[in-house]
């Protein structure tokens, strides 16, 4: 027990401290990375689900199982599928389609982006609800962290149509942009994922004839 022992103890404490600091940093970095990586995965999954839902619905714009018997609720004339879009602006769209069970009765479907105040409980200040409405029923949504849902509309000549588009039948294809972020993130470092459908054209709206 003398100077050597004291030196050993001090040395051990320093090395132990360094190890503890390393472990601490490792734990912190690991936690951050875990949040970040799983957050990114969640964002991607949310975006993928959204993209699939949107594509599923938008591809059916103008579809009706009873193609030859259906009446357009607006005109009381036989339904013209090329005029199936009821209303369209930058962040919302309404259109006619025939939803499951595909019974030949026209249904209306609307998508619109809610205000940020709808998601005020979440730490992310930018996330919003993307609402889907069937036949004027109660809007349905889940907070998937949507921060942007924007559409651009194109006419037959692929020219951009300024929203809101009020003339029926003008829209022939739609560019869809969706951005999703985490609703909460470590140190407010939000992950984001972006999906863009450059030209989605429902064949019922823009199809050509085979002859």
């Amino acid at each position, binding site marked *: 027990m003398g100077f050597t022992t004291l030196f050993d103890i001090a040395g051990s404490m320093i090395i132990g401290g360094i190890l503890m600091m390393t472990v601490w940093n490792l734990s912190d970095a690991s936690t951050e990375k875990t949040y970040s990586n799983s957050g990114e995965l969640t964002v991607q999954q949310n975006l993928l689900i959204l993209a*699939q839902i949107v594509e599923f619905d938008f591809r059916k714009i103008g*579809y009706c199982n009873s193609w030859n018997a259906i009446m357009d609720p607006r005109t009381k*004339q036989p339904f*013209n599928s090329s005029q199936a879009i009821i209303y369209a602006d930058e962040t919302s769209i309404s259109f006619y389609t025939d939803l499951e069970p595909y019974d030949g009765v026209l249904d209306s479907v609307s998508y619109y982006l809610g205000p940020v105040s709808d998601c005020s409980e979440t730490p992310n200040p930018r996330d919003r609800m993307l609402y889907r409405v069937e036949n004027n029923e109660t809007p349905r949504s889940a907070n998937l962290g949507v921060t942007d849902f924007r559409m651009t509309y194109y006419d037959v000549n692929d020219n951009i149509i300024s929203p809101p588009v009020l003339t029926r039948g003008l829209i022939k294809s739609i560019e869809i942009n969706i951005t999703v972020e985490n609703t909460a993130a470590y140190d407010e470092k939000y992950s984001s994922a972006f999906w863009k459908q450059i030209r989605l054209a429902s064949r019922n709206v823009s199809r050509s004839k085979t002859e």
Partner: protein
Amino acid sequence: MTGKAILLVVIGFSLTLLSVGQKFGSVSNRAVDNYVSYQKETLAHNIAISGANIAANEIYMNPTWTKGYSNMQFQKGNLDVTVDIVDADLGLREITATGTFMGKSSEVKIRIAPSNFSEYAYYSTYERSSPLSGGKIWWTGKDTVWGPFHTQDNLNVYQHPAFLGKHTSHKKSINYYKNKSSDAPTITGIYEPGKNLVIPPQAVENLEAAADDNGLKFQDKDSLYLIFDRDSLRYKYNYSDEYTALYLPTAAPNGLIYAKDMVVRLKGVVQGKYTIGCSSSSTTSTEKGTVWLDDDIVYATDPQVDPNSTDLFGIVAENYVYITENSVNNNNINIQASIFSENWGFGAYNYADRPVGGDINLLGGIQQNYRQAVGTFGSKGIKSGYTKQYRYDWRLAFMSPPFYPGTGGFRIVSWFE
């Protein structure tokens, strides 16, 4: 002792780092899996769409094609296509295409039906009145076409006419009276410039076989006077004759009435689905094969009042369909029919010199070879003939009068994906 402790520390750190690395790796893999899964679904869907288009093209090339494809290699995936005839009377077929790519599959169902000239609100081969007429006929800002439109000619536009039908097409180009900014048309439907759709040869004469098979045929006379009287048809061959009545459901069960090499004079009230065909054997005279509208020809149940009306009428003439110049026609004329003229067109006879006749209230469509005039106009309005009040009968988008000339092609009536 110190060595063992250090070994334990190293092993502990290694295990911890391995665990964390494995977890991060797993998360990354799942993220990639998401993209790959979406990509596979997209490719399977694209294969299915390609299959539907390929099958539609097969049917276009060979209308009897129902073979389909089974497990066909396509774009490194697999394609299955079936073709079912879902309504033989309408010729309606359903193509079901299933694309498979690396365990993901997607299905597209389309329905196609034979295309028919009656679906056009307006069709013309030439936008002039005869081969000798060099002048173009212009669509102006006062003109709105509500139904499908096609001309084999270039489209001549002045001050933004509107073409609001389901599809609009014309020959290669648009002729602007002044320039594009002052004259460009408004087109809201499917737009197909450059489309080629010709009137099939002998479109009218081909009706004779159907008339012989459960239809009603008149022949060996010069003229035929017809009055549709709801479920009856009254006819005579000379102006001074008495009319003879026929009960139409038994006289023309298939709905076709055919006047072979005759002049037809027509009026009345149509109940049910009928087509009157009028042919000519002459290649030099246009007298035969011409239908004269001596008075109103309207439906028993007006579809504008009752959209469920099942009355549907087609006038198919080899030469002209003329509005007769007579006193009853000088105070408007109501026409509810789809009108087809194989060689010439629909117009008002003596349009430039006849008195002002009011309006042509047409509910239906016009398909003609040469666009004809119905009146003349000056700065103070109409000078002779008629003003046009044409409305497309929307039912013609889905149904057609019996044996109305077909285009030879198919149209996609429904696309499910």
